C-alpha cells in the first residue's frame, strides 16, 4: 500500500489516469449539446433568422468542471484510497502478543481486544504465526495461524489479580521453551509489578518489543473501614495527575431485597496526590445493608470493594441478675462484657421483654437462672429465628435447679448441683488452666495464655451428647464453654462468671477473641493472620476482573491466615468469604496496596490503544462520482432546454404514494359499554345465535313470550331478550342462556369455549334444546343430537341424569312433573344428584341442597311454544285445541320454574318448605 499525504492507495498507478483530465477537458469542451427537434408551424416565420451569438455551442465551464470532478472522483475512488492506513512496522517472523491481563485493564478491555484483533488480521495477511501469552494466567506459548489465535480472543478475560512471581516464572519458562526469535507486542495495563523488567529484557533478547498501553490513570478503591463513627473509604490512583473527583457509591439491598445505590460520596484527588479518603456517615441500619462500594463508572475489580462484618456492628443485649451491689463496678457481672464489646458492638440494656422486640443479634444473660414462662417462650422463639443466647454461670445459676434433672431448652447441657471450686482457700488443688482448643471448636487456633485460670465453675452432667457440645474445656477435661444449636440460632454457656470472680478469663485478651469467634462482636480492625489461625473460610461470592460478582460455587475453602495476608490469585480469588456466622471480604486492593505506574524502557515504543481504524474511501468517492454524474444529467437537460417545468412535474408525479390501508376494525358489537348497560340494567334473558335466521327469530320470540309471562306472573321482570354472539359478547351478564341446536351451526372457537366454561363455573345455566323430541329421544340418534354432542364436548359439564321427580325444578314456582314445549317429550336431563343423596323416610323428596344445575338439556322446542309476536299473540300452534293450549301453558310454567331455579337456586329445596308443599300436594 502506498501512502500519499496520510491516505493510502491500494492501486496507486490508477492515479495516473488523472493526467488524462486536461485532454478530456478539451474534448468535452468542443462538443455542443445535442439539438432538440421540435415540430413548429411557425417555422415559416423563422426562416432566415440567424443566431446572434455562438457561445452556447460550447459546454459551459461549470458543467465541464462537474464532469471533470466526476471523472476525477472515479479515478481516485478506483485507486482504492484508505484513510488511516495501517503500516506494517515489523518484520515477518512470529509474533507474540503479551497481555498483562490484570483488573487494571478491564476498563479498556474491549479496545484492547479490538486492537489485538486488527493486529492478528494484519499478521494473518502477512502470514505470520501468532502466539498469545496472558501473564495473569500463563500457559505454554504455541505459535498458531493468526485466525486460530483470533478464535482464542473471546476467551481472554482480565483477572482480578496482578501477575505474581510464580506467574512470571511460569511465563519465563514458557518463553524459554519457544525456539527461534519472535517479535513481541505487549499490551500493558499501566501498573507496575515485580518481575516485569526481567520479562521485558528476556523478550527483547528474542526480538523487537513494542508496547501498547492506555495513557489513562488506573483507579482503585481500598477496603472500607469503620472509624470515628463513619465509614472510611480510600481511593487510589496510579499517576498523581491533576485534580480529579470520583464518586464512590455504596450498594446494598433495600428493604424489598433489591440491590440499589444506598449512598454516594465524592472523593477528590488533589493535584499530584495518588490517594484520597472520603468519610461516609450512615445510620447503623443502613450501614449494615451495604454489600459493596464502587467507583462510579469504572468497570474493574479494583474499583470494587466488598464489605464484611467490619461494617456491621452487632446489637448485643446485656441482661444481668439483680444488681444489688451498687457502685462496685468491677464486680458487676456485665462490666467486662461491656468493656469487651463496646468498641465493636452496639449495647442494649434493659428488661428482656423490652429488648427482644428490638431483635438484637445476641442476648447475654449473665448469671440469670430462671426466666418467666413468657420470657423463656419469647426467647426460645427468638433463638429459633436465628438469635444467639450467650449465658454465663454464676452463683445464682449454680444454686438454682435450672437444667438439673432434665435439660432446660435454653441451656446447652444439664448441670450438676452446686458446681465446684478448685484452688481456693477452702479447697484442694490448683486453679485449672484451659486446655488447647479442639480442632472442631470455633476457637481452634487461638493461643491459650498461661495466666488464665479457673477457680470455680458449674459442672456439666455427663451425657451422651455432652462431648458434641463442648467447645472449650479445662485442662482436666471439664467443659468450660458448651454450645447447643436451636433452630437457626444457638445457646452458648460459659461455665464461669462474666466477671473475674470465678476465673481470670474475662481479664485476658482471649476473652475478646473468643467473643469475636463466636460472632458476638466483630473486630473493629481487620483480623491478622494470627487471629484467623485454625479457621477455614469458604468463598460465598467471587469477582472477576471486570468486578462482576458471581456465586462461588464449588470453589474450595481457604485457610484463615492465607485469607488474611496472602496475595490474591487463582487460589485466593477476591470476594466474600464466610466461616460460620462471620463474613470476611477479600478485595483486590488491600489497605497498603499502592498503584505504581508501569515504566517502559526507552527502547520500546509505547502506543496508545486509540488507534484509528482503517477507513476505505473508495466507495464514498465512487458514490460521489455517481452523484456528480446525476447532477451532470440534470444540468445538461436544463442547459439544452429539455428540463421544462411540465417535465419536472411529471417526474415529481412519480412519488411514493404509500397508501396506509388502515384495516377497518369490523364493528361487531356497537359499544361494549352500551351492551353491558343494556344487558345489566334489567334482568335479560338471552339466546345463542345459531346462524339459522329462522331458529334465531323463534328463539328470540320465545324468550320474549317467556319474559312477558314472567313479568305478568312473578316478581321477575325481565326486559327485552337479547341475541348473543358467543365469540364477541360477554356472557357474564346473563343468568340463563337458551341454546337451540341446529345441525349446521358452527362450532365455537376455543376462546368462546373458555368463556362458556367460565360462565358455567360461575353459576350460569345453559338450556340446550335439540328441538327434535317429536322424532327422536335424547341421544345421538338425530342430527341435532350428534351436533349437541360435538358442541358440548369441550364444555365443563358434570354427570347428567334424567330429571328426577324430586328435582327442585319441579317446584321452584309451579308444581310440575312434565316439561313440554312444542313437543311433549318426557326426557329432560340435568346435573346428576350426588350419589349419597338418600330419601329420608316420610319426606317427599331427597335433601339435595347443593348447586344449580349448569345445564338443562332437552328436545321439546320450548322457544317455539313460548314464542309470541310483538302484540303477545302466540306465533306457532301447539298441539290441538284446548289440550294444545294446556301444553303451551305447561311450557310457560316450565320456563317460569327454570328462571326461578336459576335466580333462587335451591331455595325451594329447603326442608322449611316441606309442610307447605305437602299441604299443596294434598298429602
Amino acid at each position, binding site marked *: 500500500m502506498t501512502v500519499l499525504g496520510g491516505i493510502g492507495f491500494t492501486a496507486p498507478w490508477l492515479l495516473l489516469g488523472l493526467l488524462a483530465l486536461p485532454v478530456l477537458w478539451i474534448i468535452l469542451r468542443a462538443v*455542443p*449539446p*445535442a*439539438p*432538440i*427537434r*421540435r*415540430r*413548429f*408551424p*411557425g*417555422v*415559416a*416565420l*423563422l*426562416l432566415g*433568422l440567424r*443566431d*446572434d*451569438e*455562438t457561445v*452556447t*455551442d460550447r459546454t459551459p465551464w461549470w458543467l465541464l468542471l462537474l464532469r471533470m470532478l466526476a471523472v476525477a472522483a472515479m479515478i481516485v475512488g478506483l485507486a482504492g484510497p484508505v484513510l488511516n492506513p495501517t503500516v506494517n512496522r515489523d518484520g515477518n517472523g512470529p509474533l507474540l502478543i503479551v497481555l498483562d491481563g490484570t483488573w487494571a485493564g478491564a476498563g479498556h478491555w474491549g479496545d484492547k481486544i479490538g486492537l489485538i484483533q486488527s493486529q492478528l488480521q494484519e499478521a494473518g495477511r502477512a502470514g505470520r504465526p501468532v502466539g498469545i501469552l496472558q501473564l495473569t494466567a500463563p500457559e505454554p506459548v504455541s505459535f498458531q495461524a493468526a485466525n486460530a489465535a483470533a478464535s482464542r480472543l473471546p476467551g481472554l478475560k482480565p483477572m482480578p489479580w496482578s501477575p505474581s512471581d510464580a506467574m512470571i516464572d511460569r511465563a519465563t519458562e514458557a518463553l524459554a521453551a519457544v525456539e527461534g526469535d519472535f517479535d513481541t507486542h505487549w499490551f500493558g495495563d499501566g501498573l507496575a509489578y515485580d518481575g516485569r523488567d526481567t520479562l521485558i529484557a528476556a523478550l527483547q533478547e528474542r526480538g523487537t518489543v513494542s508496547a501498547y498501553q492506555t495513557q489513562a490513570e488506573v483507579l482503585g478503591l481500598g477496603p472500607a473501614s469503620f472509624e470515628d463513627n463513619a465509614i472510611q473509604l480510600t481511593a487510589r490512583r496510579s499517576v498523581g495527575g491533576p485534580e480529579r473527583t470520583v464518586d464512590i457509591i455504596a450498594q446494598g439491598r433495600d428493604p424489598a431485597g433489591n440491590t440499589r445505590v444506598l449512598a454516594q460520596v465524592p472523593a477528590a484527588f488533589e493535584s499530584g496526590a495518588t490517594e484520597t479518603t472520603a468519610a461516609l456517615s450512615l445510620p447503623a441500619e443502613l450501614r449494615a445493608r451495604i454489600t459493596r462500594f464502587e467507583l462510579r463508572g469504572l468497570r474493574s475489580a479494583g474499583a470494587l470493594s466488598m464489605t464484611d462484618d467490619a461494617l456491621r456492628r452487632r446489637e448485643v443485649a446485656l441482661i444481668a441478675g439483680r444488681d444489688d451491689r451498687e457502685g462496685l463496678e468491677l464486680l458487676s457481672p456485665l462490666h467486662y462484657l461491656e468493656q469487651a464489646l463496646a468498641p465493636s458492638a452496639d449495647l442494649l440494656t434493659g428488661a428482656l421483654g423490652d429488648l427482644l422486640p428490638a431483635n438484637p443479634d445476641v442476648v447475654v444473660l449473665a448469671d440469670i437462672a430462671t426466666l418467666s414462662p413468657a420470657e423463656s417462650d419469647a426467647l426460645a422463639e427468638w433463638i429459633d429465628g436465628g438469635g444467639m443466647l450467650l449465658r454465663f454461670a454464676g452463683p445464682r445459676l449454680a444454686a438454682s435447679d435450672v437444667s438439673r434433672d432434665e435439660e432446660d431448652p435454653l441451656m446447652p447441657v444439664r448441670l450438676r448441683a452446686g458446681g465446684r471450686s478448685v484452688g481456693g482457700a477452702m479447697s484442694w488443688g490448683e486453679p485449672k488452666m484451659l486446655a488447647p482448643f479442639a480442632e472442631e471448636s470455633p476457637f481452634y487456633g487461638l493461643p491459650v495464655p498461661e495466666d488464665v485460670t479457673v477457680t470455680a465453675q458449674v459442672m456439666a452432667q455427663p451425657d451422651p451428647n455432652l462431648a458434641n457440645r463442648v467447645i472449650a474445656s479445662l485442662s482436666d477435661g471439664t467443659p468450660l464453654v458448651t454450645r447447643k444449636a436451636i433452630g437457626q440460632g444457638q445457646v452458648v454457656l460459659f461455665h464461669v462468671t462474666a466477671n473475674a470472680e470465678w476465673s481470670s478469663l474475662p481479664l485476658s485478651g482471649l476473652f475478646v477473641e473468643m467473643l469475636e469467634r463466636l460472632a458476638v462482636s466483630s473486630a473493629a480492625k481487620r483480623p491478622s493472620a494470627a487471629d484467623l489461625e485454625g479457621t477455614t473460610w469458604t468463598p460465598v461470592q467471587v469477582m472477576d476482573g471486570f468486578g462482576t460478582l458471581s456465586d462461588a460455587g464449588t470453589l474450595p475453602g481457604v485457610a484463615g491466615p492465607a485469607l488474611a495476608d496472602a496475595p490474591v490469585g487463582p487460589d485466593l480469588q477476591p470476594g466474600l468469604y464466610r466461616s460460620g456466622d462471620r463474613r470476611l471480604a477479600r478485595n483486590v486492593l488491600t489497605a497498603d496496596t499502592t498503584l505504581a505506574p508501569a515504566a517502559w524502557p526507552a527502547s520500546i515504543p509505547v502506543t496508545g490503544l486509540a488507534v484509528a481504524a482503517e477507513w476505505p474511501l473508495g466507495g464514498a468517492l465512487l458514490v460521489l462520482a455517481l452523484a456528480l454524474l446525476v447532477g451532470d444529467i440534470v444540468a445538461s437537460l436544463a*442547459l*439544452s*432546454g*429539455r428540463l421544462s417545468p*411540465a417535465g419536472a412535474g411529471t417526474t415529481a408525479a412519480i412519488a411514493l404514494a404509500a397508501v396506509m390501508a388502515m384495516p377497518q376494525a369490523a364493528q361487531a358489537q356497537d359499544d361494549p359499554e352500551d351492551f353491558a348497560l343494556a344487558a345489566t340494567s334489567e334482568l335479560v334473558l338471552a339466546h345463542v345465535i345459531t346462524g339459522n335466521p329462522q331458529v334465531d327469530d323463534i328463539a328470540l320470540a320465545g324468550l320474549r313470550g317467556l319474559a312477558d309471562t314472567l313479568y305478568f306472573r312473578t316478581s321477575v321482570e325481565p326486559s327485552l331478550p337479547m341475541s348473543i354472539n358467543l365469540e364477541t359478547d360477554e356472557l357474564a351478564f346473563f343468568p340463563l342462556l337458551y341454546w337451540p341446536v341446529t345441525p349446521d351451526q358452527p362450532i365455537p372457537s376455543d376462546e368462546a369455549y373458555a368463556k362458556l366454561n367460565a360462565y358455567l363455573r360461575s353459576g350460569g345455566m345453559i338450556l340446550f334444546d335439540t328441538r327434535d323430541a317429536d322424532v327422536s329421544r335424547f341421544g345421538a340418534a338425530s342430527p341435532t343430537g350428534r351436533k349437541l354432542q360435538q358442541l358440548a364436548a369441550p364444555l365443563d359439564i358434570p354427570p347428567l341424569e334424567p330429571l328426577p321427580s324430586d328435582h327442585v325444578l319441579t317446584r321452584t314456582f309451579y308444581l310440575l312433573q312434565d316439561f313440554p314445549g312444542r313437543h311433549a317429550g318426557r326426557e329432560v336431563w340435568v346435573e346428576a344428584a350426588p350419589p349419597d343423596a338418600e330419601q329420608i323416610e316420610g319426606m317427599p323428596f331427597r335433601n339435595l341442597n347443593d348447586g344449580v344445575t349448569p345445564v338443562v338439556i332437552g328436545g321439546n322446542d320450548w322457544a317455539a311454544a313460548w314464542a309470541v309476536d310483538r302484540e303477545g299473540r302466540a306465533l306457532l300452534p301447539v298441539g290441538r285445541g284446548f289440550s294444545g293450549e294446556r301444553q303451551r301453558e305447561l311450557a310457560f310454567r316450565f320456563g317460569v320454574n327454570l328462571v326461578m331455579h336459576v335466580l333462587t337456586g335451591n331455595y325451594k329445596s329447603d326442608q322449611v318448605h316441606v309442610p307447605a308443599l305437602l299441604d299443596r300436594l294434598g298429602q
Partner: protein
Amino acid sequence: MTPDTALRHSAEAEAARLPALLARAEHLAGTVLLGDHGRRRAGMGDDFWQYRPAQFGDSRRMIDHRRSAHGDQQFVREREWQIAQSVMLWVDQGASMRFASDPKTLGTKADRARLLGLAIAVLLVRGGERVGLTGTSLPPRRGNAQIMRLAQALVVDADADYAPPEHRAMLPHARAVFISDFLGDMAEVRLALTKAADRGVRGVVYQVLDPAEEQFPFRGRTIFESVGGSLRHETLKASDLRDRYLARLAERRDELAQLCRATGWQFGLHHTGDSAQSALLWLYRALDGGTA
C-alpha cells in the same frame, strides 16, 4: 386487408369522427340565440307577417279563409319577406393546422377551426342562409343535409404544409369566412382577398393560433420543423429568436388587418387555449353585423 375492407375501415373511422364534430358543432351553435334575421317587411318568406284586409286586385286564391271565416271581411295572410344569403367557408386543411403545443390540454388548431366553421354553418343554416365551401366542391345550399355534407368535407386533411386560400368560383356579393392560421404565403392570401373584394364578396378573416405560437417558449439548441416536414430551421439558442419571431408574427398580423381594412373584411384572432364559444359569438356577430 383487401382494398375493399381498408376503404370500409377508413370510412368507418371517418364516420366515427363526423358525429363527434357534428355534435360538438350543434352543441356550440345551440348556445347562441338566434336573433331576428327577417327583413321586417312583408314579402316572400315562410314566417307569418300580418293579416291585412283583402284589397282589390288580390286574387281569390290569396284569401285566408280560416281568418276570414271569423267575420264578414276577407283577409289576406302576408308573410315576411326573407332572403337567404350565400355564405362560403374556407377552413384551412393544411398540415400546419394539425399542431397542438400541448396535446393533453389543447386541441389542434385544425380541430378548433373545423369546429368553429361547422358551428357557424349550423347557425347560418338555422337562420335560413345557404352555406357552402369556397371553390367548386360544395356550392352553398340550405337545409340540414348541407350540414352533413359540410362536416364530411371539413374532416378531410390536406397534405401541403400551408394550404393557400381557395378563391375560385366565388359567388358575387356573397359572404365568406376564412379560417386559418395564416402562417403560409401571404401572397396567396392577398390574391384571394383582393379577388373576393373585386367580386363584391365580403366576410371575415379569422386567424386561429396555438398559444405556443404566440409565446415561443423555446430555449437551447433546437431544430424547428414544420408539421409536414417541408421546412426546417436550426438554431443554437432558440430563446434568442423569440423577439424577432414575435415581431414577424405581429408584422404579419398587421398586414392581414391592413388587407382586411382595404377590402372591407373583418379580421379576428383566436387562440386554441381560449373558449370556442366566445370565438363563435364573435364570428357570428361579425357575420351578422355584415348582414344587417
